[in-house]
């Protein structure tokens, strides 16, 4: 009998350490993994203090990407010829260029959340753009909305095919989508045929004008200001009502100051973007207005956020990404969720492809889909999405995509071509993955102590 107790004592020794830590209740959580500050803070001051604690412990949230964006902006503003980087014309150009990276990144996030990866979305996006372009050629001449819908449907079908192969045959997504990358590259060349490209530069055909207008048509300044006002009022109002309502009924809610700060931030960012776009940026003829691609990106962002954060489907995606076994035991249809993630990824990539097609006035076989997929993964990871799964938000695609777009744009202004762009993006990606790994190492270190 004595042997029994001794054995148990020996086994328990490490956990006794944890028990001692437990005895000082306020320290345990901090020692393990820091609780998001908005959950505990009662005031803005407390929030900031908790936030600093969390940053110090290694979980910096969106801080690194925002810092990177600021740093890149300052550097390029200083070194760009005639300090042209922050000129309205270049900033609008930057939004346009970033849009493709942003939307591709938001697509990739759907699969990264599950701990999967999709290496095919570069060429799937290309196929989306090409199909939309082909459907508005004179011989087919579908209305623009039908062309876009058909192209996106085709992309969703490609994603469904990937998802079904991966889940039914139980193959790693890495390999299946790597095969898909080559396969759809080939299919793309077949679709483009001997001409080797598709153009949407007609000035007569209404449907082609709409497609190229995604990037090159601008919203009337008055309408853009009214739109901004409506968006900020609706978004800010609903955030304010939700948070005050929850606070009143004793549910967990961020402090008043934080809610106000968030609404103010959205308003300021929106005003800045609309104001910049409404400054004349034309050299000879006046060019004024917000390009349609800006609200389009915001719609993709909004839909992704609602889907992931406010609907059952998104909740189940996070669960499958965090612990597939727990999700399965809880009755979540893990196979269906994984398949749908690939559908959403390819569908979103199709939107990016249409934006790309609009931006270049068409797509040719020169498109480097293999590079774009790496930019997509980089955008998501730079934004703060984990490659291991379970952690990531649609907003990460926006932030990461802006960083990549900023580097792309800045190096182009300097006359430094593709090679430096690749090197710079590679270094930023490496930095992002390092931050991700370090914060995760912090978390596992904590769990070792905990167990």
């Amino acid at each position, binding site marked *: *009998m004595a*042997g029994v107790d001794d054995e148990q004592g020996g086994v328990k020794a490490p*956990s006794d350490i944890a028990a001692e830590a437990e005895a000082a209740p306020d320290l345990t*959580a901090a020692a393990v993994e820091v*609780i998001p500050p908005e959950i505990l803070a009662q005031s803005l001051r407390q929030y900031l203090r908790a936030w600093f604690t969390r940053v110090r412990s290694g979980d910096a949230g969106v801080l690194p990407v925002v810092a990177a964006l600021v740093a890149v902006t300052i550097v390029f503003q200083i070194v760009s010829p005639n300090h042209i980087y922050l000129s309205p014309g270049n900033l609008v150009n930057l939004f346009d260029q970033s849009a493709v990276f942003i939307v591709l990144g938001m697509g990739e996030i759907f699969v990264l959340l599950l701990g999967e990866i999709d290496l095919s979305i570069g060429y799937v996006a290309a196929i989306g753009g090409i199909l939309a372009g082909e459907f508005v050629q004179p011989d087919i001449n579908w209305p623009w909305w039908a062309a876009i819908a058909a192209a996106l449907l085709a992309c969703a079908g490609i994603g469904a095919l990937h998802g079904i192969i991966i889940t039914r045959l139980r193959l790693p997504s890495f390999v299946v989508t790597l095969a898909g990358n080559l396969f759809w590259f080939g299919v793309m060349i077949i679709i483009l045929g001997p001409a080797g490209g598709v153009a949407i530069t007609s000035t007569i055909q209404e449907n082609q004008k709409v497609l190229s207008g995604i990037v090159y048509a601008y919203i009337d300044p008055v309408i853009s200001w009214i739109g901004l006002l409506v968006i900020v009022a609706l978004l800010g109002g609903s955030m304010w009502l939700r948070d005050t309502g929850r606070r009143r009924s004793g549910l967990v809610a961020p402090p008043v100051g934080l809610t106000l700060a968030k609404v103010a931030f959205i308003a300021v960012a929106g005003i800045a973007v609309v104001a910049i776009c409404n400054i004349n940026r034309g050299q000879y003829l006046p060019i004024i207005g917000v390009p349609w691609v800006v609200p389009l990106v915001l719609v993709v962002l909004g839909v992704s956020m609602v889907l992931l954060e406010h609907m059952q489907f998104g909740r189940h995606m*996070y669960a499958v990404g965090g612990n597939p076994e727990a999700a399965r035991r809880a009755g979540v249809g893990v196979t269906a969720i994984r398949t749908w993630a690939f559908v959403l990824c390819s569908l979103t990539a199709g939107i990016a492809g249409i934006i790309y097609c609009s931006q270049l006035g068409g797509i040719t076989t020169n498109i480097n889909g293999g590079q774009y997929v790496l930019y997509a993964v980089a955008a998501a990871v730079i934004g703060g999405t984990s490659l291991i799964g379970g952690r990531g938000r649609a907003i990460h695609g926006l932030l990461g995509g802006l960083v990549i777009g900023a580097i792309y744009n800045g190096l182009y202004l300097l006359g430094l071509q593709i090679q430096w762009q690749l090197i710079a993006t590679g270094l930023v990606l490496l930095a992002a993955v390092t931050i991700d790994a370090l914060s995760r190492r912090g978390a596992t270190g904590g769990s070792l102590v905990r167990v």
Partner: protein
Amino acid sequence: MDMTTPEGGPAGGAPGSEGRVLVDPPAGTEPLLRLRGISKHFGAVQALFDVDLDLPAGQVTALCGDNGAGKSVLTKTIAGIHQPDKGEMYWEGRLVHIHSPKDSASLGIETVYQDLALADNLDIVQNMFLGRERLNRLFLNEDSMERAAAETLASLHVTTVRSIRQPVATLSGGQRQAVAVAKAVMWNSKLVMLDEPTAALGVAQTRMVLDLVKRLKDHGLAVMVISHNLNDVFEVADRVAVLHLGRMVAQDRISAFDRESVVDFMTSGRSSRQVATSGSSQGRN
């Protein structure tokens, strides 16, 4: 498991039937779940031989046994993951056939596995409602879920968590176990089976989980605790059932055992010790 085996430990004699106990329920108090003659084999391996088990409501039954004794097979059979080859199960006196985990869940049976139950990246509320989210038309009804989760945790006196919106990754082992149990309780379950609930927990956290188990009992639930830890068993159990090489070798109320007799049953399938006033093997529940 090795840790509860005394030095000379590997099972001594052949698995005799002398120690086997047939417990008939006392008249008038039908146990919540009654198993009779459950057998299960996997290929050539006979995992369970003719096992009887009673799980009365409002009581904690400890299921003990050495590695390979059949504890987890028996638990999975009740949970509907395995189907028995032979034998009957009576739920509230009615003969039932549990073919799937869904069947057992619909009866009110929940199993809590420490590390398999929770998604680390989700918060406490999200975990407790995982797979059964409350919706407000198309959207998640966070307010309603948060209130219900808070009520359940409060009813179980789980008060050590700082916020029910903190990710489960930030919880201690004991708190995680508490959340896993609360998740099971929330769905009007009548029988909760806990697999090694205190394994890998420190002293303070073990205490917290054992208190939680007692509270489940006070709420009128039937609780089955699978445990190697005799300290825990004698702390919390009302009844003890011991499996040895797939046979139920002892089943009685806790007062009919002492530590050494439980160890004897676990390691050799029999015990020569006489404990308390009732005969060691003829006790009634």
